[in-house]
């Protein structure tokens, strides 16, 4: 039942939504909106980014690699992803409660979807089909925590600081398509690297390795790591330019 859930960067240019006429920017915006909804409702229901919200976000991104935003409502899909992730991660929330939280935060949703509970339940089947029941999702957090002890040359404060920042980058990376192109461990490496860079820390290189992660992922060049980092930085930039993520409105 092993399925490869990592897509090439090129396939992001030809997603079902883009093939159906959406621009790349619109698609990324819709992805951010969906994740925003997952995150907001998740917070309202006391779900943690790790794992429930993180897993729901991965489901959401995977789903729209297979289906288009034109066919499947991002709001309903987002709510459904959170509902399913809650059950999978043993933190179940009643479908009604998830929908209620959504409506409380976004009254628009109630106007648009009068039968929200039914819609979410109906979508669950599509979601389960699409995810091929491969529900176990690895998140970058675990790998990040392992790196905490890998830098004996850094002071405790420095490494704690860097890991803390990287942790937040990971929290925010769910808004990007990073999780469909990059494996969890590599996301952890890239965003820890970003945290080091931001703080001006330079981990001491062991042996003759070109990069500190070479021991783990020897064939991952600096450029690819930088590219992954830029995806997250682009998200920060995008949210500044396009204030779509404000609290009140979703569409």
């Amino acid at each position, binding site marked *: *039942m092993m399925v490869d859930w*990592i*897509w*090439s*960067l090129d396939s*992001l240019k030809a997603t079902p939504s883009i093939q159906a*006429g*959406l621009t790349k920017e619109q698609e990324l915006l819709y992805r951010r909106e969906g994740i925003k909804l997952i995150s907001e409702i998740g917070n309202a229901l006391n779900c943690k980014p790790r794992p429930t919200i993180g897993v729901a976000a991965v489901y959401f991104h995977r789903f729209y690699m*297979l289906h288009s935003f034109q*066919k*499947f*409502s991002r709001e*309903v899909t987002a709510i459904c992803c959170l*509902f*399913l992730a809650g*059950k999978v991660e*043993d933190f*179940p929330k009643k*479908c009604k409660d998830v929908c209620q939280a959504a409506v409380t935060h976004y009254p628009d949703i109630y106007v648009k979807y009068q*039968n929200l509970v*039914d*819609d979410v339940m*109906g*979508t*669950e*089947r599509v979601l*389960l*089909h699409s995810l*091929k*029941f*491969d*529900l*176990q*999702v*690895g998140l970058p957090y675990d790998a990040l925590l392992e790196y905490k002890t890998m830098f004996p040359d850094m002071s405790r404060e420095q490494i704690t600081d860097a890991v*803390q*920042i990287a942790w*937040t*980058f990971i*929290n*925010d990376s769910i808004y990007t398509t990073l999780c469909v192109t990059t*494996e*969890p*461990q590599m996301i952890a490496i890239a965003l820890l690297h*970003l945290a080091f*860079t*931001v703080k*001006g820390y330079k981990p001491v290189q062991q042996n003759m390795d070109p990069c500190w992660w070479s021991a783990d992922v020897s064939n*991952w*060049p600096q*450029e690819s790591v930088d*590219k992954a980092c*830029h995806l997250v*930085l682009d998200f920060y930039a995008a*949210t*500044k330019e396009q*204030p*779509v993520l*404000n609290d009140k409105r979703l*569409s």
Partner: protein
Amino acid sequence: MSSQPYTAGLHQSSTQSHRQAAPKRPLPQTGVNELAKRALIGGTPNTPNGGATPNQANFEIDVKQQLLNYQKLFDQSLYPYINDVSAYEKLSKIGQGTFGEVFKARCKTTGRMVALKKILMENEKEGFPITALREVKMLEQLKHQNITDLIEVCSAKSNSATTKDRTTFYLVFAFCEHDLAGLLSNPKVRMSLVHIKTMMKHLITGLNKLHRSRILHRDMKAANVLISREGVLKLADFGLARPFVHRDTSGAPRPLYTNRVVTLWYRPPELLLGDRQYSTKIDVWGAGCIMAEMWTRQPIMQGDTEQKQLQLISALCGSINTQVWPNCEKMPLWNAMSQEPNSALPQGKARVLKHKMRALMKFDNVPESKQATDEDAMNLLEVLLAIDPDKRPSADEAEDDNWFFKEPTPRPNVGDLMDTIPTSQFEYTVGKGAHAGRGRHHNQQRPGHPAPRQQVSNAIPAGQYRDTIF
């Protein structure tokens, strides 16, 4: 997902510069204090001044209509995400599971035999049942030769095309011809020491894999141990299994689990005394019960109430008190159980397990002069069935037990035992033992009114297997 670094797909595209400027863009070295601060504060960066909604194509989605369209296309197999159950030819119903029926079936393309476990959705208010989700998720983690193999999840075409009418799903397992309970209750199956040892080795190895993956089985019993045609044991039925938090996690309060688990006859003393912070050792007790059953050929302690079960344990394994189990008085039901008029915790009982087992550890195909008690087997059984859970070995420790390294050493499988089962007998057990008899009636039990499971009764549901009780 696998942590295989660096997939080919990523490699290719990274050389092709997906965003032209990207590879050359340096990461911000300076002037990122604001960014770092924002990152440190956490949360989503929000820019407060809302306003201009970006230019976007406006389209309304009729969710119901879209779902109907989806189902129509799915039924025409235009969405190849998961297989349709019509890929399998149902042969017979072989049992009743927690959430539905179990069928024996044959894959139409490969001819492979499978067990289809139907997941009933009709009464689910919360969509796909969480117990089934748990089972799927755990089995995906647990790929091991001594654990039942989940091949895939299938769905069935819906009969009517309304969103209310939800699809039926099936879990598809590799089919096993036998289960241990069926094998043991069949007097024609003659087992020698090497068979028992091999099967116990498989059982403990599977359990060790389970516990290393931080999963409690919570329903160890002979009926849940399947044996393939090749003679390899598989732990099955994860309907009650759950992931657990490791014991020594930074003094954090340990979560309370439901106490109503494990078939009564295989239930360890701590569960009978109401423990809700139990550990992997509950499965080890079950393994001990199964080990003894290899010789007795029937469950060793067949109580019909929790009180009776405790009495049976005391009678066989000795009285339960602070001498053998220092923490026993801390158990929630300790007082209630010991104060009963007809005490469930009789004192002064000697441990007679060894004595009783010695008489049973004889093999009918070995002449009397060559019968010798297997002290190593006895010692392992002694610790597996220790009253104090802390004194039971972990599955990992049990796997390294001396017994498994003494002659005769375990073999890769018990295929030769399978071959001795006559065809007629083989046909008889097919569809009776394996994958069947999974009704977990204890889930419906009310606290305080423990109904016996698999009680001697003439009313056997059709197709359901019942342990032969001697």
